[in-house]
């Protein structure tokens, strides 16, 4: 039983990262009916931003690069820096790559999204050297860990025999916080109301006096900031990051959003957690080679059986 619960915990931690990225996918699809394939790479940029910020903070305090250790404060500051940077990145992508295509076919925007995704991935394959420092490049970049967070939390371990590491707890906590924040924003603020209006009917929202361009920009900003959070917490579990780390998580987050019902925020969160847990169980059952395949299999089954997702409304057939 403990083994089952342990793998469940592993799955929830991984799923939290998927959920954070999926929230961005679902929000953008909600207002623009666009699947922003570049979102997984915003996650990757967020991870890099977090790593470089924490390294910069350490150097400012005189700690050498050899000493890969972070404190709670540097993590929070890295999160903030990554969120701001990715918010700007998301805004720029929308403003200069998607907005000009708003009057064009849906396909053009989709292809552009893929183009931006590839552009980000391969741009960051180039190594930049400033003095003795290396930035980006295809060689993986080490991640500083918060001291002690890799260890299982002692009182949980002694009372239940389960090991939940500090990193896992932090990931899950951040995902929950972001989800709650987003739900509050969308349901209880004017901006949220405007976002919901735009997602119901773009033109009607414009006619009602909503500045749609502004609302869409805000959507991208928030979505990208969430991906950045995902990037920073997601990178804490492993020991290094590289420019292609966003490809698979991005795809899985997209699947998560579809499973939960694309356009629905709680759907995206649930989809992410569900996907993480399923992946973990498939691995635990001994089929570690098929963990990734399982995610895509679920996508196919979902699209065949219930394309609107768990929380989606079945689209009526117009006869």
């Amino acid at each position, binding site marked *: 039983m403990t*083994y089952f619960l*342990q*793998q469940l915990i*592993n799955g929830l*931690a*991984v799923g939290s990262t998927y959920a954070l990225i999926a929230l961005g996918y679902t929000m953008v699809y909600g207002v623009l009916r666009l699947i922003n394939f570049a979102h997984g790479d915003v996650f990757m940029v967020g991870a890099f931003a977090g790593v470089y910020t924490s390294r910069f903070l350490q150097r400012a305090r005189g700690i050498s690069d*050899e000493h890969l250790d972070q404190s709670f404060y540097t993590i929070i500051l890295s999160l903030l820096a990554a969120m701001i940077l990715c918010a700007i990145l998301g805004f720029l992508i929308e403003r200069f790559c998607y907005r000009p295509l708003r009057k064009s076919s849906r396909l053009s925007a989709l292809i552009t999204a893929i183009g931006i995704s590839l552009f980000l991935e391969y741009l960051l*394959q180039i*190594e930049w050297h400033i003095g003795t420092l290396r930035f980006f*490049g*295809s*060689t*993986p970049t*080490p991640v500083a860990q918060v001291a002690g967070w*890799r*260890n*299982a939390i002692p009182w949980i*371990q002694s009372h239940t025999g389960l*090991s939940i*590491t500090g*990193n896992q707890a932090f990931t899950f906590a951040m995902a929950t916080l972001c989800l709650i924040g987003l739900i509050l924003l969308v349901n209880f603020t004017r901006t949220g109301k405007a976002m919901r209006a735009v997602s119901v009917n773009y033109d009607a929202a414009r006619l009602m006096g909503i500045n749609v361009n502004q609302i869409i920009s805000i959507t991208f900003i928030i979505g990208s900031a969430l991906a950045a959070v995902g990037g920073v917490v997601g*990178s804490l*579990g*492993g*020991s*290094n*990051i*590289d420019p*292609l*780390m966003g490809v698979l998580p991005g795809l899985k987050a997209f699947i998560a959003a579809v499973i939960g019902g694309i356009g629905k925020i709680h759907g995206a969160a649930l989809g992410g957690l569900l996907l993480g847990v399923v*992946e*973990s169980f498939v*691995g*635990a059952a*001994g089929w*570690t*080679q098929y*963990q*990734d395949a399982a995610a895509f299999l679920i996508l196919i089954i979902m699209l065949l059986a219930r394309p609107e997702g768990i929380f989606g409304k079945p689209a009526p057939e117009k006869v």
Partner: protein
Amino acid sequence: MTRRTLLKFAAATALALASTGLFNCGGGAGDASKEIRIGSLQSTTGDTSTFGKSSDKGIALATEQRNKSGGILGKQIKIMPADTQSEIKVTEQAMLKLIQQDKVVAVIGEVASGRTMAASQAALDNHIPLLTPASTNEKVTKAGDYIFRSCYTDGLQGQWVAEYAAAHLGKKAALIYDTLSPYSVGLADRIKEVYAKLGGQILIETTYAGSNTKDFKTQLTAIREKNPEVIFLPGYYQEITSLVPQARRELGMKDVPFIGGDGWDSEETLKADKESMNHCFYINHYASNDPDPKVQAFVKTFRDHYNGETPDAMAVLAYDAANIMFNAIERAGSTDGPKIRDALAATTDFPGVTGNITIDANRNARKPGVVLEIVNGELVLREHMAPPAGK
């Protein structure tokens, strides 16, 4: 189309053509007939970048020494580099660039077995000898008679891993390996085979997909359930430096030793999380603190040349491979592919830093190995492993 769009289109095309031209001019420069061009096909960037960087350093040192003493056949040696970025697809293109653009007479490389195999076809098609200093998978030299290796094979390496584990670490083991790496798969198979023969039992076998996998908690949790006495980890340093700390810290598996092969050998392995990497073993091609005078002389020369840096196995192997190649070209008396090939095949008792090297009928080298243990960020030589007697 309007005049404006036509102009834009023309400008874009011109820019594209110009940029391809700019990036291509490296190869043509220099007169190929006044120098001997040898290609160095290495992964200087990407997941296994330390392998490539170390290999290049070893080759560069050997080249400089040889050039100072007159080069080969009266000509200076020029090493043409090609970065495979640790990717198989890029390797194929890099090999073609070396052969077609840089016009090399032979190639030294790659390190990863999967990538050497990817480069083999171009070598065979163009009759360019390919000498790998470090690819250990058995299948590598089976590709064709232009593919050589100057290191031991996984058949031997896997046997040594299993033997050492069975004798010193335990008879109940877990195995975790990379399904996307021919090296890892081949080594894992051989370990299983020999370990079973020695009475060892593999309690659980699990896998991961690719060197850039970051999260191993699912696999490690499953392994922890079975409580093995030792864990076989025949992977590359990139994922090992994530996996072992996760096992030690996040899963609390502090006492179980890990053991693997030469893929562990990198400065990254020693820099990572010193506390976690304790009590880990791996088979390697050489030990930098081996008291053998030839080894120590090389280590000193390397350190003097490269700012005090200690050479790792890849550097030493590449150094030996480069010298074997120079020696073969000298004996062939020409830069003709088939003649160099024949000379390489006839290499006997070549005095390398990593031992006396003879290339056998299968184009493999019969050489000894060592077992190293990581203790506080340092490598400690535990045992010498000898190759089976015979040809």
